[in-house]
């Protein structure tokens, strides 16, 4: 833990230096969703409901899913792939520190800096949203169920991205894989369109992937309360996915190191 905190304090300083960079990534996250919201706003100028949604509820929906995406999804894969491709990995391997802990701290630091833009953005948007009969419910129960789901989702995504990064052991370039996972995430986490508006086949596929449990379900907590059984069920599935991804990451790491050759170091 002490090691982790030390990492966090270093990487936080580093992340703060690159505020402008973080801001641009933030824009890249926010603008596509804003486009969707405008599209729905145009649709609702002629109809009152789309599926079960009113304009107000779809707005809240997108804001919640977007928040989860921004706060939960980390991007260690770029740095890891670079470490492997450029041979920097060797410099980590010879030190008595945990490679994965280092990047976890790094990602956490970047998330904290992201909050600098995210919190004002949410405050402004929530002030702009007309207060209707459909609102965000914040209760102790909601918060208590949200917190573990949030942490599990963060860790789950972290391992998923780590696995993608490790693929650089075998493929020199992994852009295609990053892109592919991003597509799956957009479609099956409900970021593109609310999951319950997708055709049934797609909804079924979503149940076999982690994105629904990591993003969609937690994002719905403050809109529609889940029953204790549903909550436990989602937590269970999240834990299951986390274990699978963590074990897989460990396995890939071990296999990868066997093939790893660091040239010129």
């Amino acid at each position, binding site marked *: 833990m002490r090691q982790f905190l030390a990492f966090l304090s270093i990487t936080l300083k580093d992340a703060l230096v690159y505020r402008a960079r973080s801001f*641009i990534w933030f824009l890249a996250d*926010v603008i596509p969703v804003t486009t969707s919201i*405008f599209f729905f706003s145009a649709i609702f100028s*002629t109809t009152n409901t789309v599926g079960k949604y009113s304009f107000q509820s779809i707005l809240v929906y997108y804001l919640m899913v977007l928040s989860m995406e921004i706060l939960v999804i980390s991007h260690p894969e770029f740095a890891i792939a670079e470490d492997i491709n450029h041979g920097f990995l060797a410099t980590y391997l010879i030190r008595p520190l945990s490679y994965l802990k280092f990047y976890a701290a790094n990602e956490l630091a970047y998330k904290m800096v992201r909050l600098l833009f995210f919190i004002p953005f949410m405050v402004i948007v929530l002030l702009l949203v007309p207060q209707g009969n459909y609102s965000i419910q914040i209760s102790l129960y909601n918060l208590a169920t949200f917190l573990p789901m949030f942490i599990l989702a963060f860790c789950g995504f972290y391992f998923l991205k780590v696995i993608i990064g490790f693929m650089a052991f075998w493929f020199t*370039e992994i852009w295609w894989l990053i892109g592919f996972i991003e597509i799956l995430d957009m479609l099956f986490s409900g970021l593109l369109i609310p999951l319950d508006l997708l055709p049934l086949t797609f909804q079924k596929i979503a149940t076999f992937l982690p994105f629904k449990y990591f993003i969609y379900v937690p994002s719905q907590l403050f809109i529609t309360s889940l029953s204790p059984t549903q909550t436990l069920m989602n937590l269970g599935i999240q834990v299951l996915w986390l274990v699978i991804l963590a074990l897989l990451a460990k396995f890939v790491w071990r296999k990868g190191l066997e093939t790893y050759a660091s040239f010129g170091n």
Partner: protein
Amino acid sequence: MMMSRYLKLYTAFLKINLKRELQYRAHFFLDNLITIIWSCLLVLYYIFIYRYTAAVRGWRLEQVLVLTGFYLVFNSIFKSLIEQNFAQFTRIIYRGELDYILVKPVNSQFLISLSRFSLRSFLRLFGGLAILIWGIVAAKLKISVLIIFLSLGMFAIGQIIVYSLWFMSLLLAFRLGNIENLYYFFMSIFQTTRLPINLYPHIGELIFTFVLPLIFVATIPAQALWQPISGLIIIYGIVVAVVLLWLSHYLWQLALRSYTSASS
């Protein structure tokens, strides 16, 4: 004379870049596969949403598909010709690599904008064209040669406008230093054009017409296929494209004056 020299130079760039790109055939194939899936995702997005509505402020699904086709073709051309160059723009400035460009006896803006070429989104071009044609057929549009020329002309104007705006946004690198993702800044804004501009709130429509004239990217070329475009818009587009291109060059030279290289 001047023109043919640059064309010759560009052909040489193309040859070198093609060789580089084809070194990694598996990556070429995989990257293109992903861009095709991206295109499908965009189409699916509209198909899914149009299950709940017949038209959105006059835009039917077929028309949105035509627009999406234009957007994807635009994207593919831009990503092939320009994006690789823009992606390394900040690095070139920050690390002082600009020196190598400035000492060459060729226009520096030409070199920094066009010397790299990528095939990573090449197949998206065909995906986009397929969607475009699908939309045209589904909407049962009757198109004359003149209209095709008009639409393509507007499309070309859109390319020049986007190039100029994007290029100008990168000039911030001279001020801000090492922001490696600077080119995503305009890219995120550019993504708003995948939606018909007149579906945005009125203020947005005004911004995309007069401040950031992105209306020429997909909306106007698509609309030109089914409704007459006023002469005023055509003239406006041409003027804006010329002015912005000139402005990008002017600002580039202004920025160069503040360039100090890395070692000195």
